[in-house]
């Protein structure tokens, strides 16, 4: 099998991509940072959070780096004032959507939303908070889901479906009323499909899915298992 090599430019640097790689893959290989939230190595990209949008020269539209494949000679810009403003506004929108209170969160200090906000220099949220009233489900023996901290990135849904194969999680409703659910929107502890494997907890970028018994700032997520597991499972099938 011949693997075509594509050469293109990211932020003025000449880079090359193997067939099938996305702009994000190539940027990572070359230590060029692009912020991401919904993307996670080992899971199918969905292009939903829109913080990895990049500019492409001579293209009017901004494109998500996580799903866009480079073409020969393409000039990608990953950082500009315009992109920074959009990423900031999107981050602020996420903070405004639910009730994110870092100071009391078990994931404080280990939260991808929090660290992205820091990196982007989001000092305060300029869009009004929506303050939805959302429940916390602690019916599972080992884990808790706190919808107030969920950013609907769908990582839990994807890992449960694509890697664990249980498909316990899915999304209900639409628009701002979306919420992650287990089985028929029943308490997690009563789910018949859940294998309690805990993968969803570890891929969750925020404190929405956590292990029980952790105090503030104690919940550290591990996602290293994912690419390995994915490769192993693919090689079996």
């Amino acid at each position, binding site marked *: 099998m011949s693997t075509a090599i594509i050469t293109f430019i990211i932020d003025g640097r000449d880079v090359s991509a193997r067939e099938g790689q996305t702009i994000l893959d190539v940027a990572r290989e070359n230590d060029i940072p692009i912020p991401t939230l919904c993307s996670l190595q080992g899971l199918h990209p969905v292009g939903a959070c829109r913080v990895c949008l990049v500019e492409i020269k001579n293209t009017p539209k901004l494109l998500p780096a996580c799903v866009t494949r480079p073409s020969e000679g393409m000039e990608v810009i990953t950082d500009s004032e315009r992109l920074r403003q959009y990423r900031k506004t999107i981050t602020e929108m996420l903070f405004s959507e639910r009730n994110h209170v870092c100071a009391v969160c078990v994931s404080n200090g280990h939260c991808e939303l929090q660290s992205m906000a820091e990196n982007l220099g989001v000092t305060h949220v300029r869009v009004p908070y929506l303050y939805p009233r959302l429940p916390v489900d602690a019916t599972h023996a080992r884990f808790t889901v706190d919808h107030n901290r969920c950013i609907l990135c769908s990582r839990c849904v994807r890992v449960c*479906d694509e890697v664990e194969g*249980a*498909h*316990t*999680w*899915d*999304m*209900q*409703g*639409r628009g701002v009323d979306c919420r992650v*659910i*287990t*089985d*028929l*929107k029943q308490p997690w502890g009563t789910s018949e*499909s859940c294998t309690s494997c805990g993968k969803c907890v570890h891929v969750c970028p925020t404190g929405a899915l956590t292990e029980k018994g952790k105090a503030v700032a104690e919940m550290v997520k591990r996602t290293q298992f994912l690419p390995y597991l994915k490769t192993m499972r693919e090689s079996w099938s």
Partner: protein
Amino acid sequence: MAADSSKIAAPSADKRWRLVDNVMRRHGYRADGLIESLHAVQESFGYLDDVSLRFVAASLRLPPSKVYGVATFYHFFTLKPQGEHTCVVCLGTACYIKGAQKILDRIEQDYGIKPGETTPDNKLSVLTARCIGSCGLAPAVVIDGTMSGKLTADETAEHICRCVGA
């Protein structure tokens, strides 16, 4: 191709399950027949409950969460039983411009229910639609499946009164 081809038993002896099963069979119990199957359930039973969602999920070999996700994504489906009579007020642009909101206000005033709600005596449910395509006759309402157009709030109220028989 479903690995397990054994047929899922209907939740009860109710004959309406046969109609639902017919639709699922027509789609070969494949996943792409899910929305059509949910339409069949709603047409037969008036709404989707946990029992029917589980039955459809099991028959089509789909995870329950996926079925629930689809059922709640599409606003045509309802997970709550409806009242004996239903009044759908069209909220398309033409109807909005021509005073559909006044009709909703009037219903709320008369029956104390907002869109999506049912009166406590279970007589009347009021719903809204995203344009039923009868813009030439705006504002349009559909009462118990029959459409009427160009009604004022008063005329609609009268019409509902007649149907509900209050």
